[in-house]
């Protein structure tokens, strides 16, 4: 897997759990989704996406107030959109250079 494909896969995984949570709500995140988010957060941390890993963990943390978890979720979703946009821009520029 090339670095680009690896980044695309990372962003795709991010989008998938965000979409799941958007559908069911942070108050009703199922066990399977929580595991998936935890795995993704581990990977994010390894890749240096420290803040995004922390946000993801806050979304699934059982103890915190729901409003704070929802706040962390919307922030994570917004950062995902920024990352996707940045990725598309870089990809477009590479296509042009090629």
């Amino acid at each position, binding site marked *: 897997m090339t670095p680009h494909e690896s980044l695309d896969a990372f962003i795709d995984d991010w989008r998938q759990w965000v*979409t799941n949570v*958007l559908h069911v*709500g942070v*108050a009703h995140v199922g066990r399977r989704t929580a595991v998936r988010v935890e795995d993704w957060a581990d990977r994010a941390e390894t890749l240096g996406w420290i803040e995004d890993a922390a946000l993801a963990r806050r979304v699934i943390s059982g103890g915190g107030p729901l*409003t704070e978890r929802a*706040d962390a979720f*919307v922030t994570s979703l*917004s950062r*995902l*959109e920024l990352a996707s946009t940045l990725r598309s821009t870089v990809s477009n520029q590479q296509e042009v250079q090629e």
Partner: protein
Amino acid sequence: MKLETWLATLSDDYLTTWGNKGQLRRGKKLAATGDGEFASDQHGASAQFDGFLQRLDGVGFEKLTCTCPAAGVCHHLMALLVTLRDTVPGSQLPVDAASHHAGFWRTASAETLVEQLGRGVLNQSLAIYAKDHPSVRLQESATELLACVELDTPHTVRFPRTGTMDMSVCSCKRATCVHRGLALIALRDDLAASREIASITEDQVELLGLARDWLISVMIDGQVAITDPVMQRATALARELRQADTPNAATDLGRIARTLAMRQDILTSSEPSEAIARFWLTTTALVNDRTPRPTRELLGQHKRDYRRHDTLDLVGIGSELWATPSGYEGFSIHFLDETTGTPYSLSEARNASHAGSWRAPHALRHAAFGGQPAARCAGSTFNVRNAWLSPDGRLSLRDDSSVRLTGERNTSSIVQLAISPNDIRPSAHHHFPVSVGPSPIACLVRVRLSHRLEFDRFSAKWTHRIASSLVVATDKRDIADRLNLDYRSVQALYCVAYIERAQTRIRPISAVLSDTLVPLTHDTIGATR
């Protein structure tokens, strides 16, 4: 630019700045004698005063020549211009007609201004502006931008509202000069400062907070738990946000509620999360008072703030049928301002669930504009009295409005109104003529297609990249087929520009193919030469 439009800018003050008072007085006197021979057409004029030949071969002072021995401006040329100004029909432009032009100083791209002014002159002006802080007094009127530049000696620069940089005059008498450069730099500074004036009020902050709370509550229980009361709350908040002069947040909130309530498989649509992200990031910046962009741009501008204009000359450019995901269907007839190339559209729409027997294709077939079937108005020219225009280019006709068919415009002159693909940029780039933001925007753009449009499976559209960040895209096969048939002949596209996945895309509505203006939508018949 038309000759009569330029002549309409030639006030006595303007001519005095170009020449001097004495030359204008002598020129008027000479013109009043009626001794000289005089001839004119739409492209220029010639005259013979005092035995010398004067010619105007086009539009602008640089197109003037006189065979008399004087170097530069002479009273013979003044006599020619005064005669033209007083005799050519249409050159006595009413103030109101000029006032609806934004002025090239607002609409021209930075590149265009640099090109017209000269990079050397601009650099020199920038250096003087930064080092000496010269006093530049600016005054915008209905007909011109007047700048008084105090350098070593005071100089007056006049920029006509309906003209371009070439039509500007300076009391230093040079064709291009640092006074012009200083005036434009000072103006851009003023415009940038005025954009920052908008500040957010406590009421707006409170409302934005309530809207953010609504979003948080929806995120807690998710899309599956959206109920009618939740939707009604969003609708009420969106209305209040709009009334509180924060239309961008209102639009995004409405979009979030609509797309989430559709309960479609959100895995197939990125629209809800894009709208949520835009709403969240924008309102976070506004609420925290740390705006990365001008506050007014984040708050937004009301689309429907219509203002009346006494008279407007338009050329028809095409029409299209459309439908929105929120259930509206309708049609739009597209026009360009004949002088400035500004796009306007006249639309009619209904909510499909309440439309009864009304259908957009049928309504478009029977709609008329100035007595002309609306679907056939491409290439026709119209004069609209009492036109109501909104900032985002919508045209509305009311009880006191009237439309008159005035003729036809040839296609090559329509192409002259087109902008370059490089003039289209995302909205952060304020100095570009077409700044594309969250809402789509129409424009006529010069385009060369190097190959056929190709089908992109990912976006399910036929696409063609025409610049590094600009892509022609259509989801209509018949439009792609029509363009592909003659792709080598495409000179310009009338299109709607929008942002999708960090790319500026243009959706074609009409095309200029060779010398023919071709409406591309399937329900629009006819073409004009």
